[in-house]
């Protein structure tokens, strides 16, 4: 004779599993689809811009200051260059700088973050001090100083942006490592006599990777916006390169005469790119976290 409570449980277990209420693809599929779509768009922009025929945005004084319309969806500028193709080309330049910045900053960030949590207290203090030091100046001011030191131009911007985006990533990675270090399985590994380096590589790094990847993706938008800002102020890419910052600083000269399209569309393209990176970052966060990845 079963207890009443137990009977209720067995009855509940015998019931068929309810079907999902929502029909169609589940969250995971949706997130994967979103991330893939964003990535595809960015790749298309990147390769299209990289291997574009410069003739598409060549100078053509016959068509200067055309408002957006058929033939020139984003209009043309004071030299009759097509703004649509210039924007695509400029975005691809921004993406290159974003990739370089993310690559360099992510290596610095990962290395410092892991080392500071693994090597010891003193080293950790030094790293934290370095992070605070880099954040002690407004980011834009630091970038201006670095670009000033390197004599302006593309080289200065790229180096500046590559070298100043590690502090936030380092903080994130360090916090994660600290948390992992105090977890039982890591402590157990130490007690069983495994070396610090071995524990770091075998037990800590694999768990840091998801946080790290998301951090790297979310670093792109910052890098791209800073590149555009520096270029806009006149420190970055030279005036003849088609870059979003250059385009917008030229647009500023013609805004008083009502050439609104010169600023609106190229900037909008930049915003879309940044938003897409954010979407990819958020999607990856969901996918890589087992708590939200299988909804």
């Amino acid at each position: 004779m079963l207890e009443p409570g137990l009977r209720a449980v067995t009855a509940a277990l015998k019931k068929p599993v309810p079907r999902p209420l929502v029909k169609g693809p589940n969250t995971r599929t949706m997130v994967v689809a979103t991330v893939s779509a964003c990535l595809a768009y960015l790749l298309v922009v990147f390769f299209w811009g990289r291997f574009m025929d410069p003739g598409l945005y060549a100078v053509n004084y016959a068509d200067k200051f055309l408002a957006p319309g058929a033939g020139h969806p984003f209009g043309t500028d004071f030299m009759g260059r097509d703004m649509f193709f210039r924007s695509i080309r400029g975005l691809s330049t921004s993406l290159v700088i974003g990739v370089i910045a993310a690559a360099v900053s992510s290596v610095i960030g990962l290395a410092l973050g892991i080392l500071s949590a693994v090597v010891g207290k003193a080293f950790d203090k030094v790293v934290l001090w370095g992070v605070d030091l880099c954040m002690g100046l407004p980011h834009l001011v630091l970038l201006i100083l670095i670009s000033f030191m390197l004599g302006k131009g593309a080289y200065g911007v790229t180096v500046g942006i590559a070298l100043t985006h590690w502090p936030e990533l380092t903080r994130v990675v360090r916090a994660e490592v600290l948390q992992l270090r105090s977890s039982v399985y890591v402590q157990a590994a130490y007690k069983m006599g495994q070396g610090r380096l071995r524990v770091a590589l075998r037990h800590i790094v694999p768990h840091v990777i998801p946080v790290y990847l998301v951090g790297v993706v979310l670093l792109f938008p910052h890098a791209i916006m800073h590149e555009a800002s520096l270029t806009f102020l006149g420190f970055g890419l030279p005036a003849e390169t088609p870059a979003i910052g250059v385009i917008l600083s030229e647009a500023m000269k013609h805004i008083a005469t009502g050439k609104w399209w010169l600023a609106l569309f190229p900037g909008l393209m930049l915003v879309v790119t940044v938003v897409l990176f954010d979407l990819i970052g958020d999607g990856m966060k969901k996918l890589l976290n087992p708590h939200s990845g299988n909804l």
Partner: protein
Amino acid sequence: MATRRGILFVILRMLLLLFAVSVLSFVLVAMAPIDPLVAYVGPSSTLSEEAKEEIVEHWGLSDPLPARYLAWAGNILRGDFGDSITYQRPVADVIRERFLLSFVLMMLAWGLSGVLGFFLGIASGIRGGSVFDRAVKVFCLVLQSAPAFWIGLLVLSFFAVRLGWFPIGMAVPMGKLAADVTVADRIHHLVLPVLTLTVVSIGKITLYTRQKLVETMGSDFILFARARGETQGQIIRRHAIRNIALPAVTVQFASFSELFGGMTLAETVFAWPGVGSAMTAAALNGDVPLLLGTALIGALFVFFGNLIANVLYGVLDPRVREGGGYA
């Protein structure tokens, strides 16, 4: 008292950091390939080699870097920032005059974005998941992804060029004597830059407040308050806002770094004669004293923002205060 020692410790640590930041700025600028002598006398000067050497000697340009830093820092502490090449005036005067303009701009935008963002965040957070909430979220995400100067350009082209409501730039009407400039003139010129900077900074604080509110509303003491029969308005006023206000203010103070960057970009767009545009001009003209001076002002500004944030977080929050110590 523990709190007083805590504040003192924070201040001391941050002063040390400020010193390090000044060293960093000095080293960065000193390593620039720009010859200060050429920047000062111009590339086509007819000075003889001996005269040039005398100037180099007088300025101490051939001294080692630490000695130059000490000389510069000593002068700064005495209030002597050197002379600006761009404006042909002492840097201290240039900064004093311009910082006031930048400060007004930043503080207005800071306050406006803080207050509006806070209430917008609460309004959207209590309707979590609704159309309004989603719209606010998307709006803020887009604003956060838009560069400050682009928003400035759009504001300018719409309100100043298309509608003609506001002047296109500068802080006072062009061609008007300084004595004739009225307060109304100043406000008229201030509106668009403040609007731009407010829009640029509002996204962060709104999203933060919203997130915090959603978290707080899900906690047990809110459920208990509901069970006691408190209305939604009472819960928000008595419990939610009290829990969110302090972290939100802290976040707002900690965003001084971004505020300064946004200000620099907005000043360039609106030809606003503040520190940001002076810094840009200095860096473009190789005007080292002014560049260092303005960079230092930026560092000081961030320093005070972080200091206030740290003190607020560590001292005013009863939970942290009771816990004692700064971990």
